[in-house]
């Protein structure tokens, strides 16, 4: 299938926060409660529609375990978007965000869009990190923020698509050089730069989903 752009995403965060489940929910629309530890990289892909443009999301699901951390760092480069995930029921996964963010900033393009995700929002009774804390962290570090549940699929689509919207907005603003591979964006086959990145008005009709569904 042809696409206007390909965006490379990377999913990062501590082990057990639900990175692979977030990928599976997005690509296959299913939840798998028990998942093997990820080693190396697992890949997923899906087409989304942003402002009438077909965009292919190429998603790199990385290993969160500390033991694989040095390898995970090698996958950051060339990512246009990152989903930085923590588990709202495990405070330590939130505490480690700074370290993940440092890695991301150090090894990727400065324009990379980072979506902070507080996952497992279905486990409200076991909540250990307040939503406001997540919001504050995101605000402080210039990230987008959402709480999701890979189990119920709440906000999962929105997390991926809002990230794509932000990347697309940056492309239109000229912040991303789509010809520079290091930015994690590729123009699709048979797309010319003039036809795919025309000057657009700031108010885009970004389709596919509306604003946050508010399910979480």
């Amino acid at each position, binding site marked *: *299938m042809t696409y206007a752009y*390909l965006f490379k995403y990377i999913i990062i965060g501590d082990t057990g926060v639900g990175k692979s489940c977030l990928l599976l929910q997005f690509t296959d629309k299913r939840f798998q409660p028990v998942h*093997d*530890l990820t*080693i*190396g*990289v*697992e*890949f997923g*892909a899906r087409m989304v529609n942003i402002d009438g443009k077909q965009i292919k999301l*190429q998603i790199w699901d990385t290993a969160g*375990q*500390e*033991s*694989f*951390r*040095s*390898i995970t*760092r*090698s*996958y950051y*480069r*060339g990512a246009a978007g990152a989903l930085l995930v923590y588990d709202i029921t495990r405070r330590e996964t939130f505490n480690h965000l700074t370290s993940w963010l440092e890695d991301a900033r150090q*090894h990727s393009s400065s324009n990379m869009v980072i979506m902070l995700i507080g996952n497992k929002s279905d486990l409200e009774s076991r909540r250990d990190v307040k939503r406001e804390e997540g919001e504050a962290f995101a605000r402080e570090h210039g990230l987008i923020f959402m709480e999701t549940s890979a189990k119920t699929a709440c906000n999962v689509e929105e997390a991926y698509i809002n990230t794509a919207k932000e990347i697309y907005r940056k492309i239109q603003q000229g912040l991303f050089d789509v010809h520079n*591979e*290091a930015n994690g964006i*590729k123009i699709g*086959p048979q797309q010319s730069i003039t036809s795919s990145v025309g000057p657009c008005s700031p108010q885009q009709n970004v389709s596919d989903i509306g604003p946050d569904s508010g399910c979480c």
Partner: protein
Amino acid sequence: MMTSVPPRKSWWTSKKTVKVIRSYPTFPSLNAWEKFRGLLPVDGETNPGVGLGVEEGLLCQMVHSPEFNLFPNSVVFESNFVQVRRSRNWKEIYKASNTMALGVTSSVPCLPLPNILLMARVKWHQGQSQTWNRPSRAPSINLKSILPLKFVELQIWDDQERVLRLRTVTEKIYYLKLHPDHPETVFHFWIRLVQILHKGLSITTKDPTILVTHCLVPKSLCSPGGKTELVQKKSKGLQPSESLTHLMAQGESETLSQIFSDLHQQKQYRSEKMHINKTSSEKATPCEDSIPCTCDLNWRDAFMFGEWERENPSGPQPLSLLGTLAASSRPRLSLTGGNSI
């Protein structure tokens, strides 16, 4: 989906960086390769690896395509497999139209041994011949995972049925049967690959019949202790794949000991959980393509073995993985117990 890629030069036309006088082994069992070579003009441009479908195949085209642009200068050795499970006879897990592409490559082309395993799901069109060598119509191929080979154990599991067992450090197990369309020679390559990964390449330093004129890697890159001191380029100047390459070659070794301790903890957790489940339901249902966890991590030593050779190339380098396969490929004389890395 695949995208078109520019034609690449074959490994023996583009990578003649080491002058090798090669004496082909005279084992009768090597005849498969020899015969195949005999079908082609020796000095012609036709690449037997391509002809056999183990080189520049669909997996290679995908990872080298602009969509991924991974390890662009490295040769990929690959084949088409059918995922099976153990029963009285090997039974296919998926429909015949779904196969798995398995390949090995190197994050750095000059590494003496491959260090990356590639896995991709392949979906063939209905009624399409699943010929790996230049199919008339490309099937749908999706890259599933990239695994550092040091976290993978590869074994020849059933010689007769041409089944490999692939076991990850996290105890995920796949039984992969070489696709029937592949000739026997291809399975011999896999046997040889398993041997090479396990034992290293004796021809790199020991075989007196091979004249190696120079070393690809400056000696200064390696400390006397055997630890690599990689020359750091400024990351700004690196292309993504280059960066990946260098970073992957860096620091991986520190992870192994931690992984095993972490896994041990996870196993304890899992076994406790399994115990609870078992007492409640009195039955355990092991995963289709994985085996129950064991505490046997003897193969850990196998991971450690050869690591230095794979990632610290201080000695003379071979032409390429396929070069070495071609030079010394021979079926194993005995396969009892399997050969593993």
